[in-house]
């Protein structure tokens, strides 16, 4: 020992004085020197104890195994020297068999571990050169044999070695892998979405609050916002730690057993190929190898699957609790923001009211952009509509009808009727017709032959109602709809007045002075736009904007 210390000091001194000259060989010699000097001291101890053969750890460790292997030999000798008639022979026999079994098991267990170690090497570490170097006649023939066997099994379903337990465990293993992989993917995606959505929602709430309240009423919401955002971050980090990390770690453990399962299948194919032929040393080895690998895999796959399942379950539970907590935080955050609860129904009322007020502001009304928009749509659509399939009914026609036919025969079109069949005619709303026949040539009573004073043709009777000039009907100024059932209106009722002056911008429009009375001919334009009405004043006809008109009320 003393020698060692001195030499180390010497070496150190040398190292300091000549730092770059401690070469590899020097290191090697140094370690060898250390080992030799240690063993020298051990040897001395062993000499003293009387066991000179023990030189190293290896020889120490093999001792128990050697002892186990000695027993069969001993028992064999004993058995051989015992006559079969001896009462102990039976016990000896059993003992011998048992001890032989132990040895076999130890061997097989070792084989299992060896096989697993051999085949679980990471393939990615091998370069192409390594792979090529592994190729030789033997390996190629092995691989081709396996492929043929595999095909044989697939196509002919030949007798083969089967292990249902293994198959079940393997299926479970694969299912678990797929589940874990999908879970990691989906949960990460969900987390990302949550991290996007929650801050956005909070921010828009803050923004809306800003325009809904005056600056002075600042209700100190910025604190709530930052708290909520922090909770969001916490959620994300917890999720990462409790769920994604374990699951990803689990996922990374799957490929190892995968390889071994593949190898086992190869061994299975080898084993199968020997099933057909006579048993020999080769087939024995193949069988042994397959069984060893199989047994190891079955045992460990079961453990693997159970543990993996537990991890998966735990992660799912954590996910659920995390979500619950997040929802609570969000609920609390938003709850602090609620000023005064309101009924849902009143919201639209209030808003519509405000909007109406705003829109009635003169500066808005007069400069309404839709004013111009309306115009455009009106002008665009009009040319198409003007194609007259049938000229509109004029007052002349109406008076002709009124004079020719009696009151019971006169009907009025409830709405615009489009001709659909032969001999049908078009009618516009409010036009007057006289019914000639209350049925059509085929005998159906739903189609009537009518006279408009201009043309004769058929219309559906449901579109007509009796014309009653004496009845006075109220027209709701709010409901200026063209499609509505227009009850008979007295001609005078169609008088409105211009609330505001209006300057016509084209031939289709009619200029109005303030408080000018106009007679409304139609409550919509040709394209059905209810915001422009056809009005008549001082012999002129034209379209006027509906919101410029007010109803004349008679005293």
């Amino acid at each position, binding site marked *: 020992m003393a020698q060692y210390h001195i030499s180390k000091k010497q070496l150190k001194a040398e190292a300091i004085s000549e730092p770059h000259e401690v070469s590899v060989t020097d290191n090697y010699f140094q370690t060898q020197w250390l080992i030799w000097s240690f063993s020298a001291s051990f040897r001395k101890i062993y000499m003293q104890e009387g066991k000179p053969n023990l030189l190293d750890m290896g020889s120490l460790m093999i001792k128990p195994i050697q002892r186990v292997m000695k027993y069969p030999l001993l028992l064999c000798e004993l058995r051989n020297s015992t006559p079969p008639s001896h009462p102990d022979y039976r016990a000896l026999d059993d003992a011998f068999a048992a001890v032989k079994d132990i040895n076999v098991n130890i061997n097989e267990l070792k084989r299992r571990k060896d096989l697993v170690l051999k085949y679980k090497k990471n393939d990615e570490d091998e370069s192409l050169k390594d792979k090529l170097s592994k190729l030789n006649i033997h390996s190629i023939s092995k691989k081709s044999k396996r492929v043929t066997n595999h095909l044989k099994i697939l196509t002919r379903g030949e007798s083969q070695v089967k292990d249902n337990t293994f198959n079940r465990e393997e299926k479970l293993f694969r299912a678990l892998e797929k589940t874990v992989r999908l879970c990691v993917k989906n949960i990460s995606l969900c987390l990302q979405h949550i991290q996007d959505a929650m801050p956005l929602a909070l921010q828009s709430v803050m923004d*809306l609050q800003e325009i809904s309240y005056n600056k002075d009423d600042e209700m100190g919401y910025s604190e709530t916002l930052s708290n909520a955002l922090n909770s969001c971050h916490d959620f994300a980090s917890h999720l990462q730690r409790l769920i994604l990390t374990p699951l990803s770690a689990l996922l990374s453990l799957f490929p190892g057993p995968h390889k071994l399962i593949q190898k086992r299948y190869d061994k299975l194919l080898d084993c199968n190929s020997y099933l057909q032929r006579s048993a020999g040393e080769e087939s024995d080895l193949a069988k042994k190898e397959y069984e060893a690998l199989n047994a190891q895999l079955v045992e*460990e796959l079961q453990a693997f699957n159970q*543990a993996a399942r537990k991890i998966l379950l735990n992660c799912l539970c954590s996910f659920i609790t995390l979500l619950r907590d997040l929802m609570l935080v969000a609920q609390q955050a938003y709850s602090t923001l609620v000023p005064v609860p309101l009924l849902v129904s009143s919201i639209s009322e209030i808003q519509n009211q405000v909007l109406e007020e705003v829109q009635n502001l003169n500066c808005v009304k007069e400069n309404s952009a839709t004013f111009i928009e309306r115009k455009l749509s009106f002008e665009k659509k009009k040319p198409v509509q003007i194609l007259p399939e049938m000229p509109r009914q004029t007052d002349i026609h109406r008076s002709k009808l009124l004079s020719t036919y009696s009151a019971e025969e006169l009907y009025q079109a409830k709405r615009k009727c489009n001709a659909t069949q032969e001999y049908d005619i078009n009618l516009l709303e409010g036009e007057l017709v006289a019914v000639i026949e209350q049925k059509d040539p085929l005998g159906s009573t739903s189609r009537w032959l009518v006279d408009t004073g201009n043309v004769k043709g058929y219309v559906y009777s449901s579109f007509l109602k009796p014309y009653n000039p004496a009845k006075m009907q109220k027209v709701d100024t709010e409901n200026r709809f063209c499609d509505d059932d227009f009850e008979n209106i007295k001609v005078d009722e169609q008088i409105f007045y211009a609330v505001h002056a209006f300057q016509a911008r084209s031939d289709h429009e009619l200029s109005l002075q303030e408080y000018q009375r106009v007679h409304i001919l139609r409550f919509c334009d040709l394209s059905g736009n209810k915001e422009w009405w056809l009005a008549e004043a001082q012999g002129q006809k034209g379209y006027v904007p509906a919101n410029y008109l007010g109803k004349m009320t008679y005293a």
Partner: protein
Amino acid sequence: MSWWRETLKGSMENFSKQTRKLQKDMKKSTDADLAMSKSAVKISLDLLSNPLCEQDQDLLSMVTALDTAMKRMDAFNQEKVNQIQKTVIEPLKKFGSVFPSLNMAVKRREQALQDYRRLQAKVEKYEEKEKTGPVLAKLHQAREELRPVREDFEAKNRQLLEEMPRFYGSRLDYFQPSFESLIRAQVVYYSEMHKIFGDLTQQLDQPGHSDEQRERENEAKLSELRALSIVADD
């Protein structure tokens, strides 16, 4: 007068920008919400469609419960988004549609102001000239022209000064209900979600376990797995 004008105009522009941005942001927010609940449903859907659940009763029951919860979350989320659409996004749009008219009004006033200034300058030009007959006649004519234009401008100006502040003020009454509705929708949604997931945690395998316990168990299981011989060494 013009200072007032400028600040009003400034705040109007600001306000208009705010409403536009808010509209866009709310749309983005509701889209993000929907994406989130869709991805949540996918989690449970993939779990359910896996053959893993076929043999495993416990896992199957848990996954089915999770799936129900996720689907309900999606449904509630959709409802919340619809509510927000109706009470916040639509009103925003409607209110925003008033801005073009206001801008038009401002522009018209500007035009009127230009005309006014132009004619005023003309009048002043004639006033400075020698008072001869034709000049006087022209002056008189210019003054006549000026009068209606000035009246028009003053009317427009007065109108805007009166009505813009009213418009600006009315936003409070208009948007407060939207704000309240938004908050309420979120509160209702999150309290429902809290309840759903709370119930779900009750149905779990070991509701008593805390997250730390589960974490430790996971770690233990992982080390167990790594100890297996069939697992590759990293």
